[in-house]
């Protein structure tokens, strides 16, 4: 399955092993993201990740297909959690495979940078009884915009 959006726990190790087995290509990059236990204000006890499920599946599928075309990928996979998570829980897994490492690395980074701002998920961090929606960080917008600038350079 290329895109999987789930409220069940994911295991990046198993996902990577399965991806290597099914796609024994020359260069494979994987990225795993985990829930952090801190933010700018302090400690985070838990995270609620809201999701517009139908749209998330569509956006991530378009994103993977776009990356495959842009970087000439042989294969790719995106897995994303939603629902209630604890610090250190895996939240996202991305795998890209290509003939050379440059394309595999770049595609994986492109997918993650775009996913952060374009896929319909919303994080709400909790500390004790206090919950707060996470706002978009400038660095995330900047990282996303780099890829558009690279488009216009070409």
């Amino acid at each position, binding site marked *: 399955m290329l895109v999987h959006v789930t409220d069940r726990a994911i295991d990046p190790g198993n996902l990577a092993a399965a991806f290597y087995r099914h796609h024994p290509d020359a260069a494979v990059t994987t990225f795993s*993201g985990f829930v952090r236990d801190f933010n700018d204000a302090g400690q985070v006890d838990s995270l609620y*990740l*809201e999701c*517009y499920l*139908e*749209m*998330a599946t*569509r*956006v991530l599928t378009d994103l993977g297909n776009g990356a495959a075309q842009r970087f000439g990928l042989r294969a790719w996979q995106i897995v*994303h959690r939603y629902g209630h998570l604890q610090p250190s829980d895996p*939240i*996202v897994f991305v795998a890209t495979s290509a003939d050379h490492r440059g394309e595999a690395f770049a595609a994986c980074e492109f997918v*993650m940078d775009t*996913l*952060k*701002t*374009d*896929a*319909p*998920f*919303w*994080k*709400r961090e909790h500390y004790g009884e206090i919950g707060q*929606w*996470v*706002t*978009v960080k400038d660095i*995330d917008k900047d990282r996303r915009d780099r890829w558009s600038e690279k488009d216009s350079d070409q």
Partner: protein
Amino acid sequence: MTITVKFFSLIREAVATEQLTLEISENLLTVEALKAELSLRGEAWEEALSHPNLIQAVNQRVVFQEEGIKDGDEVAFFPPMTGG
């Protein structure tokens, strides 16, 4: 015509509504017109739907508010996304 309207994250909380099925007049041909109609439901709605960073989607694609709406469409309102 009948449409579905969904709300997410802090917009959902502000209007205390996850989803609506609406019978709307043929005059509400754009997302902008739908926002104006929904804003009549009260101050919380008006405030939430005039949020400067509000994003709107029609049939799971992000659109400008001038986007047209037709029978059976799914419209969604939400703040900037924070995935990954």
